């Protein structure tokens, strides 16, 4: 039987791949893990250092046509970049593939994720919804760090080809998010004339009484109207003054932060056009779209000047950096996992809240399974789920036994009761609950981890157990969004 070694310095390799509307990039990094608890304490394994091993150039996202991603093309990029980095897919233990912006709505995005997971290594694959994208970009651009250092309300505005994702932080706490149809590729040009106009922009122009057709010249007044309007809309969004005519640019919910924004940070491809971090790289590619004009409009906008501007640490690579280095969490050190069941991918979470009372909590515990099945496996095809137990009261040993018995009982009511029992515990109780289940001689394998915060609707990937006994976990807050 394996015995965990908590005191050994351990490293894992993480890959981040960002497939955006316009560009695709990849990053390989190495995490150092250490036991940060004192010698007399129960170990606590944390990521103590992150080192970037390789940054790929920025590639154009290969598309077969407007609605289909060229899977072979993406695979080709990944394969050659792994080669250049000197990394075998088998070495990669964690990380995330993020399909962002409008690309995520492309027809074969889901199919591609499955293929990539084989191609890119047996690591964790995630897709981001617009909110998560904004959060990941803010972590990659340095805004998240800066919000902790400065104590100010920092808004990160990540603008790529298709969408602008705003995430607002203060003291490293997320205050809110917002996503808009603002991006470089919303109008594309070819030989000096308009080649495509995206539907949201077409609607905006119609609402505002402008007319722009495919084939119109690149310097038509309607084009500069669009970029100026977009910059103004960003400013209004940051101030939470959403006008009725802005609704057409809004993707999803309205701004939902409460405190007013002090500092703004631009990241993403448009920010590269503003700050030129990568000028030494030869890929000042001709994107032939409104990107540069949009960057210019943002720089010129007077309303945006009311905020303090902070330059990002990363511009175009903010999201991929976030995906590669900020999506992995480490479970608590005292957990119980069946190693042969790992890694587990795309496990939906069902949260059951005990509201600090075991007795009353157990009264309706049975409903948890019914509801989880209704939610995730309505066709009873055997989609397993993880039960997240939150707000447990202080538990004595006899309470744990009572809880474990209840868990066995309700888990046997699943459509496929022989599937592993997957539990995520908010408090530090995973090991004792796992062992108590084992003592009850349950037939199923047990995966019982703790100290990960999730909620109903999240999906998690659980990686292979490391030498120290912990598992890397990637929490995905949303999968594909629909427009």
């Amino acid at each position, binding site marked *: 039987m394996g015995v965990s070694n908590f*005191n050994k310095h351990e490293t894992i390799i993480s890959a981040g791949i960002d497939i955006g509307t316009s560009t695709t990039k990849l990053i390989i990094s190495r995490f150092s893990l250490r036991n940060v608890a004192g010698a007399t*304490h129960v170990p606590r394994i944390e990521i103590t250092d992150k080192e970037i091993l390789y940054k790929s150039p920025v590639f154009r996202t290969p598309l077969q046509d407007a609605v289909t991603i060229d899977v072979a093309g993406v695979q080709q990029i990944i394969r050659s970049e792994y080669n250049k980095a000197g990394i075998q897919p088998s070495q990669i233990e964690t990380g995330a593939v993020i399909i962002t912006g409008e690309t995520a709505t492309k027809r074969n995005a889901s199919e591609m994720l499955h293929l990539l997971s084989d191609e890119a290594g047996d690591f964790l694959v995630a897709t981001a919804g617009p909110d998560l994208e904004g959060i990941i970009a803010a972590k990659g651009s340095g805004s998240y760090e800066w919000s902790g250092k400065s104590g100010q309300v920092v808004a990160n505005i990540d603008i790529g080809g298709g969408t602008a994702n705003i995430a607002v932080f203060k003291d490293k706490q997320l205050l809110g998010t917002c996503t808009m149809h603002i991006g470089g590729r919303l109008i594309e040009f070819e030989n000096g004339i308009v080649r495509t106009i995206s539907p949201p922009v077409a609607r905006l122009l119609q609402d505002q009484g402008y007319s722009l057709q495919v084939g119109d010249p690149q310097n038509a007044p309607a084009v500069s109207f669009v970029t100026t309007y977009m910059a103004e809309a960003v400013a209004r969004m940051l101030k939470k003054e959403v006008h009725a005519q802005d609704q057409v640019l809004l993707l999803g919910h309205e701004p939902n932060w409460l405190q007013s924004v002090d500092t703004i940070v631009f990241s993403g491809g448009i920010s590269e056009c503003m700050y030129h971090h990568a000028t030494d790289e030869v890929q000042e590619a001709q994107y032939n779209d409104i990107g540069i004009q949009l960057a210019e409009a943002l720089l010129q906008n007077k309303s945006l000047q009311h905020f303090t501007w902070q330059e990002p640490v990363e511009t175009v690579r903010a999201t991929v950096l976030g995906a590669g280095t900020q999506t992995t969490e480490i479970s608590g050190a005292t957990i119980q996992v069946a190693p042969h069941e790992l890694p587990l991918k795309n496990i939906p979470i069902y949260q059951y809240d005990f509201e600090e009372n075991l007795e009353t909590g157990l009264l309706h515990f049975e409903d948890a399974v019914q509801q989880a099945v209704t939610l995730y496996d309505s066709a009873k095809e055997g989609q397993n789920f993880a039960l997240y137990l939150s707000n447990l009261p202080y538990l004595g040993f006899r309470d744990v036994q009572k809880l474990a018995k209840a868990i066995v009982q309700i888990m046997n009511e699943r459509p496929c009761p022989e599937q592993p029992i997957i539990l995520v515990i908010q408090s530090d109780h995973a090991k*004792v609950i796992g*062992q108590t289940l084992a003592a009850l001689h349950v037939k199923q394998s047990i995966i019982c981890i703790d100290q990960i915060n999730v909620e109903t609707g999240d999906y998690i990937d659980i990686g292979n157990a490391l030498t120290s006994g912990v598992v890397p976990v990637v929490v995905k807050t949303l999968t594909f969004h629909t427009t």
Partner: protein
Amino acid sequence: MNEELIQQITKMVVEKLEAASSSQTVQQPTNKQKVELFSKQPIGHVEVEKVKSSPSGAVTFHSTTEELKRNVSTVKPTPKTAYGKTKSKPKIDSEEDKLAEYRKKTPARIGVGRAGSRPRTKTWLQFRLDHAAAVDAVYGEVPDNLLEQLGLFQVQSRVADKEEYIRRPDLGRKLSDESKSLIQERCKKSPVVQIVASNGLSAKAIEENLEDVYLSLEQSLNNLNIEMGTTFYVDKGRVAVMDDIGELLQPDVVVMLIGERPGLVSAESLSAYMCYKPRHGTIEADRMVISNIHKGGIPPVEAGAFLGTIIQKILKYEASGVSLVQKEN
């Protein structure tokens, strides 16, 4: 004796007494004044107070809970202008937020406010309460029914009472002769794991946590198929009493669940000391410990579950403490 001398001495004594009583009458108003400080009716030497509260190196407390404006203004009379456009009011709020954030991260008494140059009454009473709890923990007794419930019998160290326990750690490290024969009589010989409980410096720690840690540890060892000896309780024991027990019973591993020296954060924290083949002459570096087992630290049930895996490791490497770390790497 010379009468003159007697007179002289008497005079000196009287003078001394007078001086003493007059200094007492001098002290009384200052005592009064201190009390008045809290009732917000300062009388007399206000300027003395000012002098007291102004030294630059003085430790200051500032409130984070109530009376926000008044306290903040005493701490920071001039709001910093370096922040630029931001108004001073949200800044105060954010400072409050920050202190609240810090308080969440530590049980230490930070940001608790002050009254004049002293802690506030509430803070002071809490401190006194925590201190009293610590003292009680040392002098308290483990209830008999707890030991009965768990089926533990009780033996004594060579210490006679609590005072001696504190003064003579060496005696707490030895078993009394009766205890030795009782252990010989009742315990399984040469078990793989011998578990021992002791009140140590906190009976409260045993009362609150022993059952959960013990039952969870027992289950963990059962799951791992590790044999357990006959568990018993040592009254007024020290950690190294495990050496005596090791000699008597010859176990592979001794686990000692013992009450920690109480502190002001928790008076009911339990430690689990473990040692591979403790015998007379065992060095301290070969003992290892998981401490901080209580409601506010590692949950007792989880600690018990974790101890099982540590014992498994000790048995695998046939070492504990520093030797284990060396063998492991």
